[in-house]
């Protein structure tokens, strides 16, 4: 698929306290009711953590 530059290596430093064995597979997905309405010229900061 890649129609652009190669990935930049070494952007992230490896986690300092990595578990001894790295998992072979990491996969997750989460869901909620969708209500995003921000655009790149504005983000509404009206979601309180304890809502």
């Amino acid at each position, binding site marked *: 698929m890649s129609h652009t530059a190669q990935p930049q290596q070494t952007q992230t430093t490896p986690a300092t306290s990595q578990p001894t064995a790295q*998992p072979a597979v990491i996969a997750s997905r989460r869901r909620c009711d969708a209500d995003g309405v921000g655009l790149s010229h504005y983000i509404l900061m009206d979601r309180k953590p304890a809502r």
Partner: protein
Amino acid sequence: MTLQPLDIGHADYVAITDPATAFWALVRKDRLAETLAGGPLLDAYRERAADFARELHGLRFELKPSAVYVNPTERCNLDCTYCYIPRDMRRDGEHMAADRLLAALERLKAYFATTLPAGRKPRVIFHGAEPLTNREALFAAIDACRDDYTFGVQTNATLLDDAALAFLTGRGVSIGLSLDGPTADVTDATRLSFGGKSVHDKVLSAMDRLRGYDAWSVIATCTAKNLDQLVPLVELFHAREAPTCMLNAVRCTLPGARTVKPADAALAHAFIAAVERSHALFRASGRKLVVANFANILLAILAPTARRLMCDISPCGGGRAFFALAPDGGLFPCSEFIGLPQFEGGNLFRDSMEDVLASPAFAKVTGRDVDKFAPCSTCAIRHFCGSPCPAEAHEMNGGMEKIGAFCGFYEEQVRYALRLIADGKAGDFLWDGWDAGVETSFSVNLP
């Protein structure tokens, strides 16, 4: 299901995605062949693939508008190099009269009552141009409609005096500011008044006076003029206790913006350095400065429906999750289109919202689907990036079925986001409490 590998530039992990459902997994490189051959990951995914496809379809095609960007004036006191509002409009344009603004909010209220469940308030974001140049009308509207809407204002901060600030914060209005550099000379390279005056110090003063208010944020527009200053800029935002910022790639819809367009690779490098700096500051101080546009890419991967910005999804939020109102009542899919008359879908005072939303002008934007044009249609990350922005694709690259200005930059952001997930660090880059009301729908961790 069709799984595609994606090199994320990580020492140990490679990603695989099923772009059609926005499914992803990170696989240790030494286990890739074995994982792709079958086994617990593919079995678990096969069971859920149809649910994920439905979820993504709902997000992409079934939302109803819940917000409107209201431009209460065409005018602005600044002449920023890259503005997507045409210069003549900003300099010589019209204000919306106070009674027209009120009438508009009344009409919109009636419309939103048909789209939103009872008890959920629509959002009105005053935007522009510079909304505070029409302050009296703006404040009268906020007071008159305070029970009907959740309000936000995006402002260049030059007119945000103590009284305006007290008015807005006293009513819980969310406030967005704009600043492009850590020092006046950097901000001045893109953001000056029509008379050529610096506005940098005024924005700093507003930031100081907003300290402690929880509903404010600041936008920096990333251009060729400030790329090497994004790290000190993030340091300034953090020092001034901005809860959230956005580091936005300049949208190249109008020609002026293209004069300061950075190259993808340089932008990616500077942007990631700035995001990393925000993380180091969090680790050192315990206080987060969330870079909202990057957080949104992380959310697009981790919890697609929890996205807060609707640019990085296809079709974008323009004309379906929100729309924009011009001061003459003209309706556009998004503020980004206000300078492009062919995208006016109708007029709030003459047409029904249903007709406007179904208008050819709106359908052009809401019909832009990355599954349907190259190179996006075969891209592994097309539903994490969404190929923003339609206005830019149309004006700069010649049509809706074109990519926007920063394809390579988006790819790099997704790779970086996946590296952070591989390293277990993604949560550090998200708002505290982002996952309240969010449930796990898939989880596979194989030793």
